[in-house]
């Protein structure tokens, strides 16, 4: 059977949904999700969405733009940050009109709270810019957009893993998907494909990310020779539940929570004297690890405390109820009376598929690939630069998801149906056949866990040439082992043993790209901290990294940063 739609969107999280609802009335669009609908990881976003509505106190989009650029340690493209900050206000009202149940001010407006790195008057003091629905902001936004998609009658292919992208003569012809329920492999013919597959936190051992966050979309394009941008910039969220990595929202500090070391000291006062616990995530995570390294971790172990005990039961119940329940369920503690053991957890990837501000994917010569788009965490526009601010990610998804959808609609008239090659799914059949036919070999879990350990010990918050080099060698050895990967279950129904093994190929390649880019960048900027090069060096390094997959490894080139408004300055808070 031939499947045919004008537009295929890979990923049904917020970026994919927002793009799909934009296209729905104008063209035939279908959404693919490797998980069942409403399980996408946008739903795990807790704290909120940033917009300078000024509902609680004076605010302006220019301050928001400045914070985004400074938060990104000046690696953000400023034309992109400007679009985001200006459009945020419309985007949040649009979500509200669609039904998102935001918390309210006493006047009935959308309530706003403080969040890390968001300030008034270009860094003078924290500002209330985060619009929120308790601590389940992502979930209610995704549900709202999901049912909006249903209302518009958008075709959804649930539990379809997109495994290959078909490009003919430089233009998109469609994709190949593996149907989880039946094991069938299908080709979908299309004029345009939007990749919106989210992050790849599963490269790391401790992460707030879902099992589904394996970077499938990035690998699809990377494999085709399209570069990946700024892969060395990996965000570690300061407050994961220690050991588990489950996220405790920055909203906890936005509402007044503070971090404490083994002596009970509010140590962020030393690292960011102006905004303290509300400093950007890269700085807070570094501060936590510095405390731990200098012997001030709690009980001599690798964690510190998040103290919410002064917030009171009412505030915790009304504004932070999900995280309160996580603390109760997983730690058996009550945040009203107990301190919460936290440590940094891999949370967000600033790097991804390079795109322009319309979401068009750019090749290594910075030219758009006709018909190919990307949006959301899998993309790198580059908005978040070297470190994303909290609440800018949900905003990114709806602002740039919509823009990509709109541009696809405009471009469709210029995108003919490209004749696919004969049997476009044959490469996928071979790839799956190779794994299934092995009677014995290495189990995917063994290779995956080793990769996650290497990435966590050698390429997390602090990095060094020696350990990065070692990591790169070991990942290459794991890639070699991967050629012998075998699975237990050869059947066709819901074979997640097989999809786990397929995804491991993605994780290995992305891990290698992260380490190679981190090794090449001999400076410290945002989330990328080199102990052997602890200074930011604008003269040499104010540029984006592009990593391309070649037969001999990762080839690295660079491209300039757009600086339109704010000249780089030392970054202090």
């Amino acid at each position: 059977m031939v499947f045919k739609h004008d537009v295929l969107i890979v990923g049904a999280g917020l970026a994919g949904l927002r793009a799909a609802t934009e296209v729905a009335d104008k063209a035939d669009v279908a959404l693919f999700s490797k998980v069942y609908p409403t399980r996408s990881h946008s739903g795990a976003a807790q704290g909120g969405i940033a917009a300078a509505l000024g509902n609680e106190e004076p605010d302006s989009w220019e301050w928001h733009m400045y914070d985004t650029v400074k938060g990104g340690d000046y690696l953000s493209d400023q034309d992109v940050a400007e679009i985001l900050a200006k459009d945020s206000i419309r985007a949040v009202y649009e979500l509200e009109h669609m039904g998102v149940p935001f918390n309210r001010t006493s006047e009935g407006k959308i309530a706003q709270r403080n969040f890390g790195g968001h300030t008034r008057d270009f860094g003078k003091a924290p500002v209330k810019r985060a619009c929120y629905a308790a601590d389940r902001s992502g979930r209610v936004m995704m549900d709202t957009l999901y049912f909006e998609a249903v209302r518009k009658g958008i075709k959804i292919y649930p539990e379809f893993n997109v495994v290959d992208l078909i490009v003919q003569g430089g233009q998109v012809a469609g994709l190949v998907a593996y149907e989880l329920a039946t094991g069938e492999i299908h080709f979908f013919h299309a004029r345009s494909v939007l990749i919106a597959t989210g992050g790849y936190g599963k490269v790391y051992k401790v992460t707030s990310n879902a099992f589904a966050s394996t970077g499938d979309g990035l690998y699809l394009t990377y494999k085709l020779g399209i570069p990946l941008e700024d892969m060395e910039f990996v965000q570690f969220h300061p407050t994961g539940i220690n050991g588990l990595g489950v996220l405790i929202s920055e909203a906890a500090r936005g509402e007044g929570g503070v971090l404490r070391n083994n002596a009970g000291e509010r140590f962020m006062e030393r690292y960011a004297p102006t905004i303290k616990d509300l400093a950007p995530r890269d700085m807070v995570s570094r501060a936590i690890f510095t405390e731990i390294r200098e012997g001030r971790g709690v009980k001599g172990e690798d964690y510190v405390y998040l103290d919410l005990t002064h917030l009171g039961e009412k505030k915790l119940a009304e504004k932070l109820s999900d995280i309160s329940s996580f603390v109760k369920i997983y730690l058996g503690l009550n945040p009203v009376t107990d301190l919460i053991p936290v440590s940094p957890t891999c949370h967000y990837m600033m790097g991804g598929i390079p795109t322009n501000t319309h979401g068009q994917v750019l090749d290594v010569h910075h030219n758009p690939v006709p018909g190919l788009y990307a949006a959301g965490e899998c993309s790198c526009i580059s908005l978040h630069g070297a470190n994303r601010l909290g609440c800018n990610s949900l905003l990114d998804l709806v602002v740039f998801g919509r823009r990509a959808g709109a541009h696809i609609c405009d471009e469709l008239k210029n995108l003919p149906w490209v004749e696919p090659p004969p049997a476009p799914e044959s490469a996928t059949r071979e790839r799956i056949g190779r794994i299934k036919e092995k009677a014995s070999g290495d189990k995917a879990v063994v290779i995956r866990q080793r990769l996650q350990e290497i990435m966590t010990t050698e390429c997390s918050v602090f990095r060094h040439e020696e350990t990065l080099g070692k990591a790169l060698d070991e990942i290459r050895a794991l890639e070699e082992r991967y050629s012998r990967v075998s699975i237990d279950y050869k059947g066709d129904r819901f074979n997640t043993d097989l999809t786990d093994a397929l995804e491991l190929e993605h994780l290995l390649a992305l891990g290698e790209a992260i380490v190679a880019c981190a090794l090449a960048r001999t400076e410290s900027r945002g989330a990328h901290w080199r102990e052997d090069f602890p200074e930011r060096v604008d003269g040499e390094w104010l540029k984006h990294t592009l990593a391309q997959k070649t037969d001999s490894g990762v080839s690295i080139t660079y491209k300039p940063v757009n600086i339109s408004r704010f000249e780089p300055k030392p970054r202090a808070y």
Partner: protein
Amino acid sequence: MEKQFRIFRFDPAAGEPHYQTYTVSARPEERILDCLNKIKWEQDGSIGYRMSCAHGVCGSDGMRINGVCALACQKLVRDYADSIEITLEPLPFFKVLKDLIVDMDDFLARIESMRPYLIPADPPPEKEYLQSPEDHKKVEDVIRCILCACCTGACPVMRENPDYVGPAALVWAYRFLYDTRDGEFMTRLEKLNEPNSVWPCVNYFECTRVCPKVIPVTKSINMMKREIKKNLPNPGGE
């Protein structure tokens, strides 16, 4: 410690349903999902179950654990310290596709029948719709729903009357009935007055007991019943 898991196995292409027992080492603070993963990754890759976020937000891993519907990622080994064996089964009432994976399409269709989206009476204002914090509070509990289907799997009425729309669909009906920005109050109420909507609920409270997000499901259904009695001339079609 060693823990035994008795897991429901069924592949419609390969024969009759049965149980298979596995032994795995587990720490008290580990999630049931962690144990299931260890079994799958290390012992038997053929076991089918859904999972994604692993901390009770995505709603993928609803199943029956020792007879009670719950999320495998929200229950810890120590919660079953007294059980020699932990039994994992698919959600009751649902059609089993493989092992612990059930067909959710009909469940979602029932929710969609409640028109789970805002239908305002007037075009939107330039900025946000105004809504008081008190009005927002009316939906504060029900917006916690993650569509995991534990309530619907646990509901005894579902087994007696498969046409009953079920507790989750009613939670979504409630969420829009009491959203003050919505303009369809009476139409929604009439829909809720249909024979297989609110009325088959007879207060077993099983949905409320199992809800992983602690939504007062039964109470919400009863509130809607009262609302119908107050506003419609023929509650329950009388």
